[in-house]
């Protein structure tokens, strides 16, 4: 049956993260972006929310909550609305943990999940992106070759979050047809890690380039063992998560622009009383609501274990086309002030464009 009712836990999470986003993330977002780095104490503060460990089973030291991309979307909208960089940072290890939860063998879970159940931040992340502009998950160039019982990986991975400190990477590669994920420790022979030069958006998020020069891995490095992974599901989860962050930024832009438009006077009255501005705000509001519903539909299908590919493609397409426009129109309402880095408008535009071209640095 059709329902738009969040369950109690989701409402609790939404409300508490809304507060965290408003009180902790938002006030620091501008300064962190300008500095291009996230202070360790803020990362620790984010870790203390327990979001990564929330769905790790109790037997591995986690909180044992249910895996729910739907709840994840609700969380990420709030976190992203506070600060997309911090949201991505706080959730970065989830891009490693969640595929393990979804597809890992018992042995893999036992070996790696406890790393993330402690009180201190522990980093590992997904290595998906590659150098070519025509990149797509269906056009992977990183190759995985069987060698005896093990695997040999070759290729280049880009923009890998926390490449500077991650203990492990989950590297997506293909042996020709299916897409596989491999657990690669940072000290693997043949793996070179270089920091990236920087990015337009999510500036404070440290990223690295991984060069895999015939990296040899044992058979157990393949996520899911002989079953491998459901790559479509993994990618869909990432895409929905990125879209949720974009919705969060859009909502924040809209909420920020409304009082400004009421206060800012031009030609004798608040600009909000001009239909051009009022209708722009109305459209921003319309699209925030609409994008959220598209994200919810895809996320709820992931929760239900259904093939969410169609809903994800549609949600990603819709959010890509509308989120940047919302951020960009928000900037426009502020005119020249929107272009100056004292205000967060230009940051929100950069971050929105960035999260909507990534297939997801943060995924729950």
């Amino acid at each position: 049956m059709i329902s738009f009712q969040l369950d109690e836990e989701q409402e609790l999470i939404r409300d508490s993260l809304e507060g965290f986003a408003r009180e902790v993330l938002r006030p620091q977002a501008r300064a962190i972006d300008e500095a291009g780095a996230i202070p360790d104490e803020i990362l620790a503060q984010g870790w203390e929310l327990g979001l990564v460990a929330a769905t790790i089973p109790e037997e591995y030291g986690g909180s044992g909550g249910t895996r729910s991309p739907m709840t994840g979307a609700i969380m990420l909208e709030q976190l992203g609305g506070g600060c997309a960089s911090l949201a991505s940072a706080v959730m970065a290890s989830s891009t490693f943990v969640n595929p393990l939860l979804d597809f890992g063998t018992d042995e893999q879970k036992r070996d790696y999940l406890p790393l993330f159940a402690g009180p201190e931040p522990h980093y590992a992340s997904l290595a998906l992106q590659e150098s070519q502009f025509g990149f797509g998950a269906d056009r992977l160039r990183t190759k995985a070759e069987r060698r005896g019982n093990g695997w040999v990986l070759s290729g280049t991975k880009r923009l890998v979050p926390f490449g500077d400190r991650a203990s492990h990477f989950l590297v997506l590669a293909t042996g020709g047809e299916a897409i596989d994920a491999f657990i690669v420790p940072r000290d693997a022979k043949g793996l070179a890690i270089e920091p990236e030069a920087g990015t337009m958006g999510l500036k404070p998020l440290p990223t690295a380039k991984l060069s895999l020069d015939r990296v040899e891995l044992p058979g157990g490095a393949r996520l899911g063992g002989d079953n491998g992974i459901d790559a479509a599901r993994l990618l869909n989860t990432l895409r929905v998560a990125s879209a949720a962050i974009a919705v969060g930024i859009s909502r924040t832009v809209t909420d920020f622009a409304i009082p400004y438009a009421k206060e800012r006077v031009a030609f004798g009255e608040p600009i909000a009383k001009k239909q051009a501005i009022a209708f722009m705000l109305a459209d921003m509001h319309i699209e925030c609501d609409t994008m959220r519903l598209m994200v919810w539909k895809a996320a709820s299908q992931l929760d239900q274990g259904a093939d969410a590919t169609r809903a994800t493609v549609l949600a990603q397409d819709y959010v890509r086309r509308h989120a940047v426009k919302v951020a960009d129109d928000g900037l426009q309402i502020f005119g020249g002030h929107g272009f100056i880095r004292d205000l967060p408008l230009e940051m929100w535009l950069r971050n929105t464009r960035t999260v909507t071209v990534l297939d997801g640095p943060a995924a729950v």
Partner: protein
Amino acid sequence: MIDFRISEADQHILDQVAAEGRAGEKYARHFEEHEHEPLPEAFPEAAEFEPLPRLLARRSKEDTPPATFQMLLSFARQSTNGVPLRNALRGGGGLGNAALRAAGTKEQIEKWGGLILAMSITEPGAGSDTKAIQSTARLDGEEWVLNGDKIFVTTGIRAQGVVVWATVDKSAGRAGIKSFLVMKGTQGFEIVRQEKKLGIRTSDTAAYAFRDCRVPRENLLGLDESVPREKGSASYRGVMKTFNMTRPGVASGGVAKALGAVGFARDALAEDGIKVDWQAGFHQRSATQQALIEMEADAEAASLTVLHAAWLADMGRPNNVESSVCKAKGGEVCRTVPQRAMELLGAMSVSHDHLVEKYLRDGRISDIYEGTGQIQRLIIARSILGYSSEELS
């Protein structure tokens, strides 16, 4: 729990409704070309389909709530191009009936509820601006005397009676506007013409003239003759409620035309070997696939806003802004999606051999009636900015 699933039982009903709609498509072109020809009471094919009330009677109360399900029914029915196999308009089913139910007294509802009632608001000089209504009603003894011109009266030909908006006191603005029940055949009430339209041709649209048209004093809906001087009188708000309830409904019609158009394009191109590959990344898609994805995303997004607004109504929660959001989105996609579908299908899309062009013509009205997209944006903007209609107009 957030859920977009439709139960098997409900899906069966929706499939039935869609099948009945498609069965009516064989008659569609005829009634396009003979737009003022009345529909028969029933087509032979009607016998093949169980009537909707019977289908609905079997629904579980645990399933998708009723207003939300009405929207799904509207998507299923109106995304086909079929004429109704059964004359859909029966007593109680007109727009005026909704107004009667919202604003009438119990006795009035009992008396007229079984008729087909049209709703007559718009005037040649007014449009969306109901405050500017020029038609007057003057009390003369125990009768109201109505004068004025009305246009765009939906089912104005077929209706047995009509709910007419007129002002009893022009100086009072909106508060002076009252609604009156006028029966067909009343002296001084003339049907000036039946409009010829771009689309929705099986729905008749009339223009009326009232010239010293006299109706009994008790034909004032609600019987409240007072004219409050404050803004936003209860009487006027009572009347406006009918809008608030109908916006998702009208939006659902526009969304349905978008869904129908994209479905038509998808099926037609699939026959020519052009299909969406959902697994393919952007660079692996064809231009046609991408266009279909975008149209499908737009139509689906609008459909979700409609379901959301209706669901809030089901839950008894305020849905004023969400109703305007869905009406704005419905009004957008009823224009853009059929337009794009035709672009994708090329020249043959304009041929009368096919019905795809009908989606464009029939859908177009959804961004006009019950408030244009511009009016919806005003409503939304006022709400998010906390402005009154005087502060933002």
